[in-house]
């Protein structure tokens, strides 16, 4: 018991620190990559290659004067950044990031809290973040903030459904909501990574994840051309920083989630060396590196998309969520369940690489009508310029 407590405490502190430092580096990476894409230099003066820029920003925000709007609801105004910050940093807790680490006191699972409810916990805490945003919008007593907060709520709940439904497909194959089991089921070979048998579910999840984290092309809650800074217009100094940290750690969590649900988690492809005991320190380090590499790849994708795509109009965003993503996700669950039933009961296959490849072929066939026929500007109004 005491070993468990000590191990948990160490894991909590290490994971918290890694996320905070990762978020700091991510804000720098965003600015540097943005600059690189726009043929500029970006922040490069503070420390080598600008590496200390986030530290300088953090320090500045800590000692900067804060404004508190006169008509604001003081208690909620203080509470809102906390409500945003806490769930953002909690969500990562159930994601396994490496194989168990052998120690003198037994194997230590490389996950902060391996909850039996796993994925449900992520759904629950992922949606809690919206409270902070809507409270911030409401308590500021600023019309722009209020609009930003309302937009964020409507948007997050609209895409929540598509996100949940796309992961139902993952649970069909995994047969358990524990993320450890989801990874175990995927680690048979490269093609049992869920991105192959469930490619379209991954596509839905990716779009929904961008919308859930309020990133471009779905960043309407803070569309600076329309709403100044959206829900955090009135926030400055450390409270603004907390919203910023929450946004970026949500990105980290979403990337880690994509890795876990669709890209095999810490699984190293083309070998089963990492999936079988006895656990060694080398295995832990190798799988941890693999996991981090995948997460960094998705984070780069986030930044890349942000500086490439324009923003949606609000009615387009809602129409996409309710008229495209939702029926698509519903139909997909139905189709994939039927296909699994046919392969499992009709042909008597058990879940292995062959099973996954058959589903992958089905996905490719489905992708053709989806991307070429489904939406020609009829559903999402104005998404195609009329000739």
């Amino acid at each position, binding site marked *: 018991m005491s070993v468990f407590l000590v191990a948990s405490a160490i894991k909590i502190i290490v994971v918290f620190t890694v996320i905070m430092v990762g978020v700091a580096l991510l804000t720098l990476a965003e600015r540097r990559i943005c600059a690189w894409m726009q043929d500029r230099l970006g922040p490069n003066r503070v420390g080598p290659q600008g590496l200390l820029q986030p530290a300088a920003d953090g320090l500045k925000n800590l000692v900067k004067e*804060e404004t508190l709007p006169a008509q604001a609801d003081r208690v909620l105004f203080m509470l809102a950044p906390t409500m945003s910050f806490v769930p953002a940093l909690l969500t990562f807790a159930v994601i396994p990031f490496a194989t168990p680490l052998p120690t003198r006191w037994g194997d230590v699972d490389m996950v902060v*809290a391996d909850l039996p409810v796993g994925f449900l916990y992520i759904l629950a805490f992922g949606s809690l973040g919206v409270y902070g945003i809507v409270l911030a919008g409401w308590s500021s*007593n600023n019309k722009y903030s209020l609009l930003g907060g309302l937009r964020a709520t409507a948007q997050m709940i609209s895409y929540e459904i598509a996100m949940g439904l796309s992961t139902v497909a993952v649970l069909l194959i995994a047969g*358990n909501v524990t993320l450890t089991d989801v990874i175990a089921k995927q680690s048979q070979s490269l093609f049992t990574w869920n991105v192959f048998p469930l490619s379209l579910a991954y596509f839905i999840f990716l779009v929904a994840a961008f919308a859930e984290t309020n990133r471009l092309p779905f960043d309407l809650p803070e569309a600076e051309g329309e709403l*100044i800074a959206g829900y955090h217009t009135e926030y400055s100094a450390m409270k603004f920083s907390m919203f910023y940290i929450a946004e970026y750690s949500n990105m980290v969590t979403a990337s880690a989630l994509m890795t876990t649900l669709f890209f095999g988690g810490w699984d190293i492809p083309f070998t089963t060396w990492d999936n079988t005991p006895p656990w060694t320190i080398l295995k832990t380090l190798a799988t941890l590196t693999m996991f981090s590499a995948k997460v960094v790849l998705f984070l780069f994708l986030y930044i890349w998309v942000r500086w490439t795509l324009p923003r949606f109009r609000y009615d387009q965003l809602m129409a996409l969520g309710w008229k495209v993503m939702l029926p698509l996700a519903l139909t997909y*669950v139905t189709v994939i369940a039927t296909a699994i039933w046919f392969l499992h009961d009709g042909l008597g296959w058990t879940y292995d690489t062959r099973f996954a490849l058959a589903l992958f072929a089905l996905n490719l066939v489905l992708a053709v009508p989806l991307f070429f026929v489904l939406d020609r500007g009829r559903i999402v109004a104005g998404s195609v310029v009329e000739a």
Partner: protein
Amino acid sequence: MNQPYLAFLLLLGFVAFNAVLLIGLSHLLAPRKPTALKDSPYESGMPSLGSAHERFSVKFYLVAMLFIIFDIETVFLIPWATIYLNGAGSTGGPSTGFLLVEMLLFMLILAVGYVYVWKRGALQWN
């Protein structure tokens, strides 16, 4: 069995402590020199007219209600999905074929509701 929840509680405490610490530190360290103009809401430099705490479009409630319907439906599908291939992990559980038919019926009922909502114009944001 309950050990992971203990770890979660530890994390919750640690994160909440950090959040309070950050706000507390900035309150201690930051100067505070309020003026009437500084404390007025920033609305692009225009003098603020009235309060922002007014009624807003009923559309938002409609979206929220629709969300509840479909989100509960997702929650219903999750336990269904986990036993789909294994029949609740024991022999004698429901077969995959039975579960499939069950889900198709459920989806059909849901689809009727979805079409109704769409046709009644609940999904219009112009």
